[in-house]
């Protein structure tokens, strides 16, 4: 199995713009994997998109800001395809609180909501409200952890669309993930769910409930440390996701794992 990739990427990383051009080939034969660069010429790397996003976010209290936009052409066993990456990875800080965000240039509204909430946040942790909503971006981060262990009234499923790391169609699936993720030609593809979404028969969300708008720590098992907007109050809290009572119909794509569709959820 031979795979080839040619790509360019522009990245804004904490104040430095880096533009990369590269191409490479990967070979798999049984359990053996080999990769190396192939001749690549310097190509124009468009950086205006990442600079625009970096400018839009420049006044936020960021501890880390990485904005990436890339274009890649792929070839595997006669199949060819092209894709674009658009990713923002940032952490925002206020006092001893750190909000972790993975998003896209199309979801800057999430980031401004989080920044505004964080600026108003109390530093002291409070008990979690009895009925809490999770914003779509928080659910998106949680989804890969829910695969295979979701409460019985919800289903975690892969959404059909696009192609995987071998150029095969990504199909609808609920388990035994049939597709392979290849974020770089330098790594062996791994079986992984693409474009996960959460389904539940109950889709009505009570918008008056407090809402968790951001993660304040990496997810540990199914335990979340989140920033909650509760009326005029904003505070950190901890919650274990043991039950989900509703999942909204509206979904947004976020760059966690091989991609997820986050939706607002009511616990």
């Amino acid at each position, binding site marked *: 199995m031979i795979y080839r990739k040619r790509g360019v990427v522009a990245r804004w990383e904490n104040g430095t713009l*880096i533009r990369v051009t590269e191409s490479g080939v990967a070979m798999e034969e049984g359990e053996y994997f080999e990769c*190396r660069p192939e001749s690549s010429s310097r190509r124009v*790397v468009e950086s205006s998109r990442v600079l625009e996003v970096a400018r839009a976010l420049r006044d936020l209290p960021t*501890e880390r800001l990485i904005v990436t936009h890339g274009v890649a052409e792929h070839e595997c066993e006669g199949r060819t395809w092209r894709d674009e990456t658009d990713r923002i990875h940032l952490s925002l800080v206020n006092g001893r609180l750190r909000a972790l965000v993975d998003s896209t240039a199309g979801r800057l509204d999430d980031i401004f909501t989080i920044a505004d909430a964080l600026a108003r946040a109390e530093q002291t942790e409070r008990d979690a409200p009895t009925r809490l909503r999770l914003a779509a971006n928080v659910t998106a981060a949680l989804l890969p952890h829910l695969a295979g262990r979701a409460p019985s009234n919800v289903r975690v499923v892969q959404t059909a669309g696009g192609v995987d790391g071998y150029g095969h169609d990504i199909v609808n699936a609920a388990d035994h993930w049939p597709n392979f993720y290849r974020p770089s030609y330098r790594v062996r593809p791994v079986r992984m769910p693409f474009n996960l979404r959460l389904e539940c028969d109950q889709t009505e969300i009570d918008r008056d409930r407090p809402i968790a708008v951001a993660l304040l720590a990496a997810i540990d098992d199914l335990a979340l440390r989140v920033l909650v907007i509760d009326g005029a109050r904003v505070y950190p809290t901890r919650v274990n996701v043991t039950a989900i009572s509703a999942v909204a119909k509206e979904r947004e794509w976020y760059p966690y794992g091989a991609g997820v569709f986050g939706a607002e959820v009511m616990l």
Partner: protein
Amino acid sequence: MTRFAHAVREELWSRGRLIESRLSHGEAFEDEHGIVATDTRDDALAAAAERELDRLRAVMPGGFTVRLVAESSTEGTTGTITVRTDTLSLVTDPAHIREDVDLLHRSAASRSAGFQPAGPPASSRPVPLLWLNGSASVLLHELLGHPLEHGRESPRLPPWLHVDIPLSMRRATFRDVPLLRMQHVRATQTSAPFELPEERIEITLIDSGMYDPLNDTIMLRVAASSIGAFTIQEPRTSVAFIGAHGDPLRYPGVICSREGQELVVGSSAPVLLTELR
């Protein structure tokens, strides 16, 4: 304008079978507008990396999962060998591989013998920690090194303990932005005798560590100790240095990851006794 170029050869072996082989090369030019990087090949660097890989392969131990990484760059040539069992790993080089593999065998045997069950976090045990085998350098890496990279003030050290941690701009690959990183951690001691406490935890291998600049805390996952594996998570101010003895011992392996860039940081320290307060 500055130029960085490198070539890297890497192989992954599993119990004597080659399962992964990689070549990577490229160069990066940096000026006031940023960095432009391509995978351009420098033949001399690629040949030097290949020679270094041959040297690593010649001393590679069998019976383990082994990763060989040979890098030749505009800043020099390095070779590292990561040796892994099911639960433990260390990073070594051709000059030290025999003694380090012996240590791995001993540590793995004591774990599989089961007489050292994993304990609760050390912070719940008011027991002194005895850092053997140069492992104190990992504590100092998190306690002093990363805060230094973030421009944080160091806690006051006892006059008998000297720690050398030079910083420089380093990068893992031509695709990366150089960051201010540790070059090495070398601790020495002068006249700091201590009475060996009867009750103590002896630490030999560290799995990973972390410094959180926001909360000024450190976290260390101890992989092998007299109580098995455990985690230390403490404010920096809670570590107290009680005493030390001997010359610095080379710790087998600190691969430091920051912003996704993994770099080897040479590390050595004498046997050190600390307490958590």
